[in-house]
């Protein structure tokens, strides 16, 4: 009896351990695979030059720049909107049916597949509003897609700020808006940034939302404005693997691009970890 109980416990603990090994192993495998396949083509030229000779030579700088600009645009659009929405939900609205419906709406939005966002962006921004496929349309579509994540992250951050801070502020004669801007947001800002960065890291790797709204297969010109078409890393990988006439060389380029994208996303996550640590350090309440 005693032995079997011990054995059973040991068995399940071992299983948990094995799961962790598998999970981390997969991560290692993915990174190792991409590095081994892509490291060869990485060079200064690859990072800073435009593509040449039907993309069998040259670099991916326009795609790197395009992805950075798309992400930046998505933040510029989604951060204020998400921030104010979360402030409304946490600081202004009262618990009740309206708030429940808003939550359901936000959650549903986060469940919409990214390709549907792409189609929606195509219909609204590209066609109806007449932007054409461009940086602006792609940024708005990506922004729309990360909006629910930003709202949720901000909501959680605001909720984690103790009620006693708000009471202290209100008891001094502050308005709710004063309290939000001067007490709650400064205390929550690191946590909000963490959420936003993670959301944008995800957006950086998305192909579907931008393939109808912003991205082009090939351009030597760098974007000059909001209405420029742009290259983007994930779409560039997709294009290299599915189009063109030099499959072998293109595949090598695709892995190189994937490595750059992966590094970019890991870098972004690193920044998020940095902010999270900073947030924890300041948090002694």
């Amino acid at each position, binding site marked *: 009896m005693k032995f079997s109980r011990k054995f059973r416990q040991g068995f399940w603990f071992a299983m948990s351990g094995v799961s962790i090994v598998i999970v981390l192993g997969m991560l290692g495998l993915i990174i190792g695979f991409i590095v081994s396949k892509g490291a060869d083509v990485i060079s200064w030229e690859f990072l800073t030059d435009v593509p040449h000779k039907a993309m069998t030579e040259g670099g991916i700088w326009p795609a790197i720049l395009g992805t950075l600009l798309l992400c930046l645009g998505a933040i510029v659009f989604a951060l204020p909107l998400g921030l104010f929405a979360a402030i409304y939900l946490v600081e202004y609205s009262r618990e009740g049916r309206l708030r429940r419906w808003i939550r359901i709406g936000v959650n549903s939005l986060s469940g919409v597949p990214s390709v549907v966002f792409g189609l929606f962006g195509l219909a609204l921004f590209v066609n109806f509003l007449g932007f054409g496929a461009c940086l602006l349309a792609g940024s708005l579509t990506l922004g729309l897609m990360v909006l629910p994540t930003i709202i949720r992250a901000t909501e959680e951050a605001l909720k984690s700020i103790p009620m006693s801070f708000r*009471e202290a502020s*209100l008891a001094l*004669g502050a308005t709710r808006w004063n309290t939000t801007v001067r007490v709650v947001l400064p205390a929550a800002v690191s946590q909000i940034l963490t959420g936003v960065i993670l959301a944008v890291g995800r957006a950086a790797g998305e192909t579907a939302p931008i393939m109808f709204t912003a991205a082009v297969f090939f351009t030597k010109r760098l974007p000059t404005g909001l209405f420029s078409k742009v290259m983007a890393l994930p779409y560039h990988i997709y294009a290299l693997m599915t189009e063109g006439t030099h499959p072998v060389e293109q595949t090598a380029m695709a892995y190189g691009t994937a490595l750059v994208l992966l590094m970019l996303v890991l870098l972004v996550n690193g920044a998020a970890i940095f902010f999270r640590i900073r947030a924890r350090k300041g948090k002694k309440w």
Partner: protein
Amino acid sequence: MVDVQLTHREAGPEAMVAKVTIEGLDLWFDDAQVLKDVNCAIPEKAVTAIMGPSGCGKSTLLRAMNRMHDLTPSCRIRGKIRLDDLNIYDEGTDVYELRRRVGMVFQRPNPFPKSIFENVAYGLKIHGQRSRAALEQAVEKALRDANLWDEVKDKLHRSALDLSGGQQQRLCIARALAVEPEVLLLDEPASALDPVSTAKLEELIEKLQDDYTVVIVTHNLQQAARVSQYTAFLMLGELVEFGVTDEVFTAPADQRTENYLRGIFG
């Protein structure tokens, strides 16, 4: 325990000016009535203690005096509370100005996660004070008034969260004093503090009554006896007794007060 209070015996409530007058106050949370027809006049520039068993509504009564219940949707209030001549529940009352005039310190010290200076300057800033010199002056005055200046004058720009619990609570008092309130509401301010910090806090409260009307909620009888000139005894939402502290303690008019003081509940 009561001896020190004897000096106050001749100063009855009628000799004092009422700063806060509570008239027929009923208060509900949803359907539960928490305060029942409370009437009393809180004297100006004195310390009034509100005591009573847990759940008797003493904190609720305190929070009614600066309309903190506005934040609780389930709260319903009937009756009047006057600050001087202003009925604070009148529709036209500027609740932000009211809360500036009626400051509050909470049970647990709750300094903002900002510097000591910013904590004290906060109230002035939200009320529009921008001049650096004026802020510095006001911060120093408030910290001196809260008996904290000497302990923090060299680290004004360090985080307030690095202070000890007792210092944090005095910082919260300084923060409340900085906006020059007339009334100071203290909601069991020493309940999270050690005895030494509590003694310092009580010393401060005694000093504050020279300039402010202080109302302190406490469930600590000795504390009520030590710091207050007047005592209100609240039970199950009813104001059982209100009078000069040493009279309430030595010769309670109501049997329930006597039972409570002797440690018999109900």
